[in-house]
């Protein structure tokens, strides 16, 4: 009789291996969230820096490494959004974003890129998590800090909006 395989504790798995495995996921998620590849690169680096510090706290029984990294990435991005908002407020440049419009991933059709760019960051991030990273409802809910039902609703609305935008462009 063989015992069921136990999940290895975080310390047993190399951080470098985990980072390598999920680097594209984190970067892709941040590109969708920020619409800025350069910014996404910086935020991804910051995310992994934070993750390394917290690595010993990571418990694979609570969430997968990808989910955990996406949670850190989201917090990092939100911190950046907050800092940006404060900066914009100080400069009194209301409603002006420095993020270049249309700086979306390469390989998308211009219509889809424009439609995605027209969505809010909240809508894009749910598409990134569920479609791009193919996280299941529970994992996405964990990253976003909401219920799986709310994730479904948010995704449904985002896709509907995206479809509408596509129709307009077509």
């Amino acid at each position, binding site marked *: 009789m063989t015992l069921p395989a136990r999940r290895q504790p975080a310390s047993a798995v190399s*951080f470098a291996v985990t980072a390598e495995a999920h680097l*594209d996921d984190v970067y892709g998620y941040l590109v969708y969230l*920020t619409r800025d590849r350069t910014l996404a690169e910086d935020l991804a680096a910051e995310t*992994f820096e934070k993750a390394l*510090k917290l*690595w010993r706290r990571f418990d694979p029984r609570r969430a997968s490494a990808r989910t955990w990294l996406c949670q850190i990435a989201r917090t990092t991005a939100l911190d950046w959004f907050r800092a940006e*908002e404060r900066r914009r407020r100080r400069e009194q440049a209301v409603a002006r974003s420095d993020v270049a419009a249309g700086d979306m*991933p390469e390989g998308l059709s211009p219509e889809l890129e424009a439609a995605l760019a027209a969505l809010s960051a909240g809508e894009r991030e749910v598409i990134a998590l569920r479609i*791009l990273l193919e996280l299941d409802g529970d994992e996405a809910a964990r990253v976003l800090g909401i219920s799986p039902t709310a994730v479904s609703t948010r995704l449904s609305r985002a896709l509907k909006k995206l479809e509408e935008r596509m129709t307009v462009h077509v």
Partner: protein
Amino acid sequence: MSEHLLDQIRAAKPVAPDTLRERVRTQAAALPARRPLLSRLTQRRFLVALPMTLVVGLLAAGVIAKLPQESSSDTAVAVGAATTATAEASRGRESLPAQSAPFQNSDSVAIAPTPGRLQRVDAELRLRVEGLDELSNATKRAMRVAQSLGGYVASVQYDAPARGVGGANLVLRVPSARFQTAIAQLSALGTILGQRIGIEDLQTSANDLTDQIVDTQRLIAQLRRQLASTSLVDEERAVLQARLAEARRRLADLQTALRGTRAEGALATVQVSLTTEAITPAAEKEGRLDRLGEILAWEGTALLYALVLVGPFVLLGILVWLALRLRRRSEETRLLERA
């Protein structure tokens, strides 16, 4: 939403640039800090630690309950010039036969008046005797003890009903010098249920009174010499005579007080309570279990108090945490809407 569009999104998944990959590899080469102690307390460890804590708590309660109960008879408290010693017999001692528990063999044998010093001594003895006949005998013997030691019976109450519990209460005065003998003989009259001994030093106040008497006597002698002088005018003589009369009154008062203090120290008061009430044997057996239960009850009470005290703060903390979380979420949503 068409599957074609979704496939397009999936196919165009961004790939991390090499510069980022290199940065992350460099970061990963660094060694992370040691995990904090609290974060190492996993759910599984907690499930082991909790029952162990409970077991340790129960063991501690058991050990405390098993420790010999500190009898107050072992305690002699000295405060200033006064010494009070209380000896309350434990339940365990109740089962001792009268002959095996004389005062000399008890824990409080060291508690005795200091020879050569004036001390107020008093004691209470609670004894159990077998039946009404024994009660009558013990009462008579207690009275004889007082008289044989040169003391007397200050009061006696004897109650021997046809049915029920009989009892006698005696107040005996015995010379302080023979106090220990009196206690030893009286303790042998029955099974000791309880005892209390009180000793208060009177020597200091007696010395003070003596000093004041000597001073007053000197004053009187001095006033007499002054009054013997022929050169005094009438007014001066009247003043001196008034002072002399006052000093004599004071001397009389001081001498009375000194006599009273000496009388207090000369005789010790011993109250003896005799009863025929039976001792329940279950009491001794239940003692330790009762104590264990009592300690557990105290632990529970302390825990309840802690909960009552801390509970509102915890609740408030949770509410604040929820409010902050809600606020943070709405702020995040707003940020993502704008971004």
